[in-house]
C-alpha cells in the first residue's frame, strides 16, 4: 500500500477538511470562527488542486499556479472579511452572527 502516491488519499483528506470547515461555518456563532472555517474550506480546495496538479500530467504547472492564486485571493478575502467583522462589531457591539438580524423582515 502506497498511500502517499495515490490521488484518492489526498482528495479524501481534502474532502474531510472541507466538511469540517463547512460544519464550522454552519454551526459556529462567532463571526471570526466562521471566517476561520472559511479559511479551512479554502485550504481544503487548495489541497485538492495541488493534488490534482501533482498526479495528473496535463495539470502539472497549472495546479500549483491556481493554488498560489487561491492563496492570494484568500488573503484578500481574509482582509476584507475581517475588516467587515470589525466594522460590524463596532456597529452592533457583538461578534455573534445570530444577533445580526437586519435581514429579518
Amino acid at each position: 500500500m502506497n498511500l502517499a502516491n495515490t490521488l484518492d488519499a489526498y482528495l479524501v483528506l481534502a474532502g474531510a477538511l472541507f466538511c469540517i470547515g463547512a460544519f464550522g461555518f454552519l454551526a459556529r456563532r462567532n463571526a471570526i470562527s466562521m471566517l476561520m472555517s472559511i479559511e479551512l474550506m479554502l485550504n481544503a480546495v487548495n489541497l485538492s488542486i495541488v493534488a490534482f496538479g501533482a498526479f495528473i500530467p496535463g495539470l502539472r504547472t497549472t495546479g500549483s499556479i491556481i493554488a498560489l492564486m487561491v492563496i492570494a485571493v484568500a488573503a484578500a478575502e481574509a482582509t476584507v472579511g475581517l475588516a467587515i467583522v470589525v466594522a460590524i462589531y463596532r456597529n452592533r457591539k457583538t461578534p455573534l452572527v445570530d444577533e445580526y438580524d437586519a435581514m429579518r423582515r
Partner: protein
Amino acid sequence: MNAASLIPLIAALPIAGFLFTAVAGRRLGRRAWVVPVAVVAIAWAMAMVVVATALSGGFGESGAVVKLWEWIPAGAVRVEAAFFVDNLTASLLIVVTTVGLLVHVYSIGYMAHDEAGYWRFFAYLNLFMFSMLLLVLGDSWLTVFAAWELVGLSSYLLIGFWYRKNSAALASKKAFIVNRVGDVGFALGIMAIFVDTGTLNIRDSIGHLASGGVSLAPCAQGVVSCAASMPIPVWVIALLILAGAMGKSAQFPLHVWLPDAMEGPTPVSALIHAATMVNAGVYLVARANPIFASAPGAMVVVAGIGIFTAILAASIAMTQTDIKRVLAYSTLSQLGYMFAALGVGAWTAAIFHLMAQGFTKGLLFLASGSVIHAVHDGQDMRKMGGLAKKLPHTYRTMLIGSIGMAGIPPLAGFFSKDEILGETFKAGFIWVWAIGVLVAVMTAFYMFRLIGLTFWGESRVDEAVAPKVHESPAVMTVPLWLLAIPAMLLGLLLSWPGPPLGPLFGQKGTGLLASWLEPVYKDGLAILGRGEEAFALFGIDGVLILVSVAVAVIGMVAAWRLFGVEIGSLRRRGNHEQVRELTARVPFLYRASLNKWWFDEINHLLFIVIGGRVAAFAWWFDVNVVDGIVNGIGSVTRRSGSGLARVQTGRVQNYALGIAVGLIVMVGSYALLASR
C-alpha cells in the same frame, strides 16, 4: 304613380310624426294632436291605395317588394331593408291603419283632460303605428324582429303612460318582461331559420323550409355548414316561432300580462291590446304557415294552446267586475280562437277572425273608454247600470259590438267565429270544436252580462257622479260609429261569395277573403293536402251555422235571465238572487274564475317564492362557494406565505445550511443516478 312606391311612406310617415312630436310636441300644448293624426290619416289613405292595388291583383300573385338599401352586407350574409306587401299584409294593413286612425282621432277627445302628457301620448301612438306597420311590412325576419321589439317597447311606454300610478308602472314592467320570454323563443327561432336556410328573408327561408330541405345555395356560399343539412328540425323552428307569437298574442301561459295591460289609457287598450299588436302573433303564424304545415305536431300544440286559452279566458271573463278586464279576457279568449284556427290549418278563418275582432274589439274598447269617461274614470261595473239613456251613442255602438262578439248573424263576429268553428269541425278536430262551442256560449253570456250591468237596469252610479254623467264629444262618438260599420258589415263583405263584389276582386266562388289569401296559403295547404271544399249551406255547413247561432242565443238568453235586458219591447229585470244562488252552487269554479285561476298567484309562487329561493341559494353559493374558492386561494397564499416567511430568518447561517442541504440533494441524486 306606382302604388308600390307608397309602401315605404306608409311606415315613414308615423316615424316622422313621432320624431316631430317628440321634439316639438311639448311646445304645441293642446294642438299636439294635429301632426300625429295628420300623418296617420295620410298613411291610412296611402295604405288604402296600396291595399286596393294589392287585392285587385295589382302586385301580382307574389306581392310587391320594395328594396330600400342593403342593411347588413356581411359577406355571404345579406340582409336588406325591404318592405313586402302581399294580400295577407294588405288584410292586416286595413285593420292596423283604420283602427289606428280612428283611435288617434278618438284620443283627441279622450286624452283632452291630460294636459301634461298630451303630446307624449300622441308621440307614443305614432311610434307604435310605425312599429306595427314595420312589423307587418317587413321583408326579413330581422326587420320583423326589430319591429316586434319596437311594438313591445311602445306597448310598455303606453301601458305605463300614467307612470305615477304604481299599478300602471308595475303592469308595464309585467307586460315587458312576460313578452321577453316569448321574444327569446322568437329570436332563437330566427337563428334556427338562419342556420337551416342561410337567409333571413322571410319568403326565401319559408320557401326553403317548406320544400323540406336546405337549398344548396347557402351551403355553397359557406353560410351554412354543408355537413349538417337541415340540422334543426322544422318542428323546433315552428315551436320557437310559436313561443314568440304566444308572448305577443298573450296565449297561455304567457297570457298574464294582457289583463294588467288595461292599466294603460283606454285608446291604447283598444289599439294595441285588442286590435293590432296582440294580433301580431296570429299574423306571424299565418305568415309562416308552410313551416307549421310541415310540422303537424306543432300545429296540434298551436290548436291546443289556443283553445285552452280561449276557454280559460272566457271562464275568467264571466265573473270580472272591471269593464276593461272583461274585455281584456274576452280579447284573450278570441285570440285563443284564432290560434285554434291556425292550429287546425284554417288560416283564412284565423285572419278573418283577426280582422273582424280588430274592428269589433277596437269598437268595444273605445266604447268602454267612453263609458269610463262618462262616469269619471270608474271602471267597476257594479257602480254603473242604466247608462243606456244617458250615453245613447256609446250604448248603441257597444251593443252592436256585443252582438257581434256573441255571434249573432249577420254581424262580422258571427261570420268569422262560425268560420273557425266550421273549419275546425271539418278538419276533424272535434274536441277543439266542442270546446269552441262552449266558449261561444260563454262569450255571448259575458258580453251581455257586461251590457246588462253597464247599460241596463237601475243606476248604481255614485250619487256624486250621477248628475255629471254625460255623453262623450263627437270626436269620440264619431270614431265609434265609424268602427261600428265594419263591425257590422265586414263579415258579410269578406265572406260574400257572389257578385257584385266577387268579380270585382277576381275571386273564384269562395269567400272574398279566402280568394284574397289563397296565394299566401297555397304552399301550406298543399303540404297539408287540403283542397278547397264546396260550401254547402244545406249540408254540414248549414248545420254548423245553426249550432253556432243556437249557442250564441243560449248564452245571450242566459245572460238576459240573470242580468236583465232592455232591447225594444224585450224587457226583463236582472235577478241577482239567482246569480248569488248559482255562484254558491259551484263555489270552486266561481272562486277560480274570480281569481283568474290564480295565475298571478302561481307565477308569484313559481318565480317570486321558489325562484327567489333559487336565487337566494345561488347567492349563497356565489358568496360561499365561488367567492370562497377565490378568497380561499388568497388566504391559502397569504397563510402559506406567512408560514414560509418563518424560513426567512435573516440569519446567514440558516441560508448557508440550505445551500448545504441543496448540495447534498444534488450530489446525492447524482450519485444515485450515476450508480444505476
